[in-house]
């Protein structure tokens, strides 16, 4: 049976959305009940997982309603296995509940399900007393681990054991930022915060908010903090990111500098709002040592813990999080998919996904910039041809990456984009130093002291230096809000993650046309072309496309040939 439906449901609940068909209704359905896996080309891939399905149920959906909607949009007959799986998972929803009674942790629920679970050693080991067919007394520390295990086994549990209020902290959002700019939450930010902070039978509480890069995840975190009004621990992926959190908090709330601190550095200060990095928390001198900073979780009476870039959450923090389930938690991320396949663990320990925004929707509504990606093929400089041919395989890539012909191309691109803030990003310091020198632009590397870095960022923002040459330190959490152009000279082999991180630097919305450009310079006829194609895969799967341009007269503008010619002639 074949119809005009725009989705194809596979028996393992992988769902393909054919964007070539009218797909608005189907897309809305999938955003509600499934996880987006990739959005490459005209057919986007989604997957219904136990968690995504329970998230949908918690948002008020019914299992049968999902099945009917899937059928109505489906191009082919819904596989019986898929239908049955939805029905099975849905039937288990709401049948188990964690609660506190007189300080004791209880698991209550459907007698038949509890009977099934009694046979599972990984569940039964946490039970102190099988009090009856419908109620078990649990070890108090198992709340997180047990939820994680129940999710793995396909049994969702309502966590109604409540949250610890934590030390109250009065925080208000400013109507105008400290810098004097009017400030108001965007509708989607408002919605994400509302869902997180409400606490009804079917939704709210701890959970994860998924927003594309540049759409203001930090603002959602800050607004959640203000709404909860409690002392908060914020965990981030890098020192720079931590400092940006601090600056944003001071800029957009009435918090004062003495109530916000970045943990680490010179003193190990702990304030009502403390920001720390995952690296610091998981630091230890040797494998046999304890994580000496993990005590931060208990340093103050936290009422909220925010996990920034929650997809990067390291394993020790996972374990720690499992033991602090009484504290309210908010996860923020741009991607649902963890490379280690631990996405389900994130949801079970932090909480279900509360909000997910489609990247293309964000772009259409100008919440993120519209980035054009182009690969420019540059011939290898004559002087390097012989050394490339003679080089050992490992050295070939470096010679190709440091192709001297790339510099004139960079110059052309800079000329074309005028004074737009531009990052020139590369892998090899020697090349970066030469390029920085040739362009008269400052160079930022891992060796650049923190103060110097901040000064360079400020100068860059202020437009004093419209071009910044950066090493791979640009990969992580450097927030350059006004960068509109990125030129990638070289990268780490075929790293898709690195490519995405570098494109992500450009996604913050821009004034004016809201456009940004990402160029990757690749040496023609060398190993670099193969690696470049591999690097681009992640972005392709996010729905982006790369122009392929040769470094000749017509290559400069991927969108406008006439302008290109002018630039080339100019």
């Amino acid at each position, binding site marked *: 049976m*074949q119809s005009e439906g725009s989705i*194809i449901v*596979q*028996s*393992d609940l*992988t769902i*393909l959305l*054919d964007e070539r068909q009218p797909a608005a209704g189907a897309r809305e359905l999938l955003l509600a009940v499934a996880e987006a896996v990739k959005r*490459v*080309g*005209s*057919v986007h891939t989604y997957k219904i997982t136990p968690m995504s399905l329970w998230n949908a149920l918690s948002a008020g959906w019914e299992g049968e309603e999902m099945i009917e909607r899937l059928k109505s949009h489906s191009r*082919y007959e819904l*596989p*019986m*296995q898929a239908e*049955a799986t939805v029905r099975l998972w849905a039937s288990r929803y709401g049948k188990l509940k964690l609660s506190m009674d007189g300080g004791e942790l209880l698991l209550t629920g459907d007698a038949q399900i509890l009977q099934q679970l009694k046979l599972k050693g990984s569940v039964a080991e946490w039970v102190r007393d099988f009090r009856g067919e419908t109620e078990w007394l649990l070890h108090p520390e198992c709340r997180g681990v047990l939820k994680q295990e129940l999710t793995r086994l396909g049994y969702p549990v309502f966590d109604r054991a409540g949250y610890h209020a934590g030390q109250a902290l009065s925080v208000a959002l400013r109507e105008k930022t400290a810098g004097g700019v009017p400030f108001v939450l965007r509708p989607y930010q408002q919605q994400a915060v509302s869902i997180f902070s409400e606490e009804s039978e079917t939704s709210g509480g701890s959970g994860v908010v998924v927003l594309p890069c540049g759409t203001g995840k930090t603002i959602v975190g800050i607004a959640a903090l203000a709404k909860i009004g409690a002392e908060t621990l914020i965990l981030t992926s890098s020192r720079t990111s931590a400092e940006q959190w601090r600056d944003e908090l001071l800029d957009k709330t009435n918090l004062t500098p003495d109530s916000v601190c970045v943990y680490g550095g010179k003193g190990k200060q702990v304030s009502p709002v403390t920001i720390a990095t995952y690296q610091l928390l998981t630091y230890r001198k040797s494998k046999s040592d304890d994580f000496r900073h993990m005590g931060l979780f208990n340093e103050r009476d936290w009422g909220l813990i925010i996990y920034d870039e929650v997809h990067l959450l390291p394993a020790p923090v996972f374990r720690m999080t499992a033991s602090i389930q009484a504290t309210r938690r908010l996860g923020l991320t741009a991607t649902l998919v963890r490379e280690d396949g631990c996405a389900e663990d994130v949801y079970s320990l932090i909480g279900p996904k509360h909000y997910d925004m489609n990247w293309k929707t964000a772009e259409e509504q100008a919440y993120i910039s519209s980035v054009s990606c182009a*690969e420019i093929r540059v011939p290898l400089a004559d002087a390097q041809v012989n050394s490339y041919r003679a080089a050992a395989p490992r050295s070939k890539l470096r010679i190709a990456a440091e192709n001297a012909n790339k510099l004139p191309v960079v110059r052309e691109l800079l000329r074309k984009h005028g004074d737009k803030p531009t990052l020139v990003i590369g892998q090899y310091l020697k090349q970066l130093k030469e390029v920085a020198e040739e362009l008269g632009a400052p160079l930022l590397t891992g060796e650049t002291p923190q103060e110097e870095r901040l000064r360079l960022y400020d100068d860059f923002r202020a437009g004093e230096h419209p071009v910044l040459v950066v090493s791979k330190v640009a990969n992580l959490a450097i927030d350059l809000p006004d960068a509109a152009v990125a030129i990638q000279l070289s990268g780490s082999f075929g790293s898709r993650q690195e490519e995405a991180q570098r494109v992500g630097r450009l996604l913050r919305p821009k004034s004016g046309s809201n456009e940004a450009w990402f160029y990757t310079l690749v040496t023609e006829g060398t190993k670099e*072309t*193969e690696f470049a*194609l591999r690097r*681009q*895969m992640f972005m*392709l*799967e996010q729905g982006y*496309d*790369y*122009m*392929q341009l040769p470094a000749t007269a017509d290559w400069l503008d991927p969108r406008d040939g006439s302008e290109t010619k002018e630039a080339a002639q100019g």
Partner: protein
Amino acid sequence: MNTEQLTRMLPDERLRSFLRQDVWLHAAERGMSWQEAVKDREAAAIAINRLSAYASDTLKMIVLRFGAEPVAEEKLIQALRDYTRMAGAESRIGVKQLESAGFLFAVQKLWGEKIYWIPSDCYTVWQNALFPFALSPVISSARPLAGASGIREPFGRRILYLLAALAKGDASFTAKGLLSKKTAAKLDEALLLDESKLTVFPLDWANKDHYSLKTAFALTVSSELGLLRKEEGGLALHTERMEAWLALAEEARERELQDRLGGMLFRWVGADALFGSILMGASGGSWYSITEAEKLIAGLTDSMHERAMRGQVESAASRLGMSEWTHLFHELGWMELAEADVEGQAVQIFRWRAFPRENTPEDLIVQPNGEIWAPPGCGYAARWELELLGERVNAEEPLLYRLSAAAVSNALEQGRTKGDIERFLQTAGGGELSVHVRALLREWTGKACRFSFEEVTLLRCDSDEMAGHAKSLAELAPRLIEQIGERDFIVESSSVSEIRRLLQKSGYPPRKGIGGVKAAAASYPSFLSAHERAGAEEVRAEQDAISNERASWLLEPIVLRHYQLVQNAQDDPEVVLLPGIERVPAAWWREMRSYHASTRKEFMQQAVSLETAVQLRLNGEIRSFVPEQVEQRGQEWAVTGRMIAGDRPERSRLTPDMWEEMKLVLPSGIGS
């Protein structure tokens, strides 16, 4: 042996003679050949309805008791005696009539023993005509069945994957005349078949330590379909047949495979073929209860066994049941299995998958990252190409392929060019390729196969002087394509004869044959060297192995082709019915009479000899009795045989005082 093989082996006159029998009148009028008629549901059903009671009972017993498994004559006659009401003469008439009408065939061993069988590819059609079943569709909602959930890819696709793996790999034979271990392993992998679903069937195959059952099975099917043929050095695809097969609508392709499968398995499983056949007779689209089908079969076989004399016949316990067949059909992607509630009980249900009867091609979806979705309607020719160009990622619908450097490189090896690949993807994908896909193809085709080895013919001169001579010949010079070094020239193989003639004409006849001094010496080998002798043995071993390989992968329970097929009526000695009947008084079969004890004995002895039944008046009631043996104990005698009561024979021993009157019962149409 199936109808196709029989058609090849039997004389045309014999094939025509089948259709001259009354039972095939309808088919003959429709202009059908015997081969068409026996597998046509309607024609076969009409013919079977017209069979005499003897032939019909014989065929029913064969179908239920032996299936399509070959059976020795003695065993067949014994079974007819055990499981039917017929007397020996009646059974022989039944067998003879079936042979004459092209239902039953025989081979004859050298010492005269015969083996009978029905063509395996007719089994399902005849079973349906003899025992029509009507399963009731289950209307309760189906839910997945643990252990057999979902649907598998249709077997046709798995055959395609196997052939693609063979075409991409090394299809040549080793010195033992077998595919290499590596190739065999690749074929195994390509089939995606759970072998345990096949191993429960009592199959036998050649080179077990080399080929798995599933590979032997799939190679046999491919070979029977004509897609694959064995050549001297290895296996080769039959490209024309492949082209036609790939172009079939999916329904026709899978139907043909189902028929082949039935034909192959039914030869092996005897009476258990009934399970498979009943399932295959169910129409597609509806769910049916497996339990109901089992009950129907049990009813049928029970009634047969009830007819058999209790405790007197060999047990025909089933080796296979419904479960083995349904799981095999599910594994081959033809059947869905599920569970449903029927009358408050959870029962297993099955449904034949419906495949498209016509090709309605759906475009491939070629994604910018090199992923290709092949929707269910994607043609098999396109799937064949995808097997070459990409790596299959899943086994779901639609199938996902991923273009890869290795696969594209292999495609170049197989003679595809970048242009070919782009054209295929554009045409099958119904649109322009993305920039990234073009870049990937450019990248992957830019390096592989830039160099190649070619076999060319070399004109080798034994000196510079002779090279100069060749160049100086005006007619010869244009045929010297390229000079290699001082003394050699590349020439077209097709020009060799002409160049030879020109050189001869110029006074320098070239060496005969192709090759230099070494080749010339090798053509007249020395037999003194032990090394050379060992080589010869290897060659012989190789030839033997090739012959062995040619035999088959999947074997047959009895290799009928080793025996002489009974091809013409004259090959088969006429069955002498009622031997000596002329010496028997006509009154013996015309009326019931009372006879003296000594005459009664003679009467019974005559009936045993004639293999006929008798009618006896026992306590005033007329009963049929088939006497088998007259026993003498001192002065007393008795007769043992089968007493027929309704459908059910009972073994009985009668003394002459036990009946009042008697008469012979001659087979219908004799003695009237």
